[in-house]
């Protein structure tokens, strides 16, 4: 009886795909959580259709904190900034339980008026570095944050 059970289980054990916890990287088609109060973001999250990443604007194509992403949300293309990541972070940088995104438009102005989760303080430096004099101004995002950790 027991032997037959084991025999049954063996093909299950050797199945090809890995079952360990993944690196939680933000890459193509990762589902994100919108954490601002923009109308489109709120509705998408309420309907249970969180946005998908369709492009990460950096060379590695893996999103790290403060990176700009293009997301597909409710049939539209919107840009967003990653403000919290699930994957293991450096020392003193917070690691979140979900991959958070704040939606922005092309000029870097956030679509919402408030972020209702904490924001890592390191974003203040990262976004300031990413902002150029004539390009988009991402630091507006910091103005609508409620709390930093």
């Amino acid at each position, binding site marked *: 009886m027991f032997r037959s059970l084991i025999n049954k289980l063996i093909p299950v054990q050797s199945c090809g795909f890995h079952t360990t916890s993944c690196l939680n990287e933000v890459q193509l088609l990762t589902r994100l959580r919108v954490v601002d109060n923009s109308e489109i973001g709120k509705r998408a999250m309420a309907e249970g259709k969180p946005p998908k990443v369709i492009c990460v604007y950096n060379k590695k194509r893996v999103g790290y904190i403060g990176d700009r992403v293009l997301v597909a949300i409710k049939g539209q293309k919107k840009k967003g900034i990653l403000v919290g990541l699930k994957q293991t972070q450096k020392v*003193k940088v917070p*690691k*979140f339980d979900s991959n958070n995104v704040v939606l922005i438009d092309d000029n870097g102005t956030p679509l919402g008026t408030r972020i209702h989760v904490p924001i890592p303080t390191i974003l203040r430096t990262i976004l300031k570095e990413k902002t150029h004099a004539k390009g988009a101004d991402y630091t507006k995002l910091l103005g609508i944050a409620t709390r930093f950790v």
Partner: protein
Amino acid sequence: MSLVIRKSTVEILCAAKWIFRRDCRLLSTLPEKTEIVVDEKERIPGRKTRSYNPILENRHVYPEFLPDPNPNWRNSLREKMERADMLKRRSQIDIPEFYVGSILAVTISDPHAQGKTNRFVGICIERKGCGLRAEFTLRNVVDHQGIEVRYELYDPTIQSIQVLRLEKRLDDKLLYLRDALPEYCTFPLDMDPEILPEGTPVPINPVQVKLKPRPWLERWERQELKGVSNIEEHLKEKDRVRRELRKTPWEKYDLMKNYRKTIPAEEQSEIWNEVYNQLQQMRVSRKKMSRKRTVTTPKTQLA
């Protein structure tokens, strides 16, 4: 091996004591001294043949002073230099005694933050690394968002580490709090420190958390966790069978494995003899300082 057994028995005893004392206090207002006497009487027959060495108990209070047991990385001189550096850092900042399950508040100087300081409160869910590499992880749920921050114990940007509630939990690692209901790791950021009366042993909190339904981050059912109450609810028959198959009950009898994982008692006592005096001195001087502070603070309030 025997160390581990003793440790576990002591823990169980402590847990029993804790519950027992709670009940006692509800019923009567007996002074604590009598209880301690009872405890000691209980302990003596249950002790192993090996003699009880109080200096070895430091391994729970200062676990990072013990080197990595991997023989490929051992070097006595390097370990000595490392310990000297750790003591130097400890002379600048009070690194208190805390355990996995204690609630801490850590203030760091952060070049990114607005006031150049950053404070975070959370429960310590993991403590790992040895020597100057020692680190711990704090977890909290702020605004319904679970947040974890990893800190290095000897990082010179840490301004203070404050223990808000000193207690232990039933497990060595509380990583399962990631999959537990959020109320088990929600702590207010302006929490007040709870002060234990001096001389009491560190209480063990026997709280058992409830896990969220699957999917989980790890297979918690295989880890023999004591601090989880509803793990059986979420399991299927398949999981139970595979848990049985994957069990390694012989490992606790594997003397060599345990020996390789731990630092022998002789080496430990050598280390503790080297650092104990300084640590004790620092403790005493800190206590004096804190007493002075407690005396002076009300005056300022009055003024």
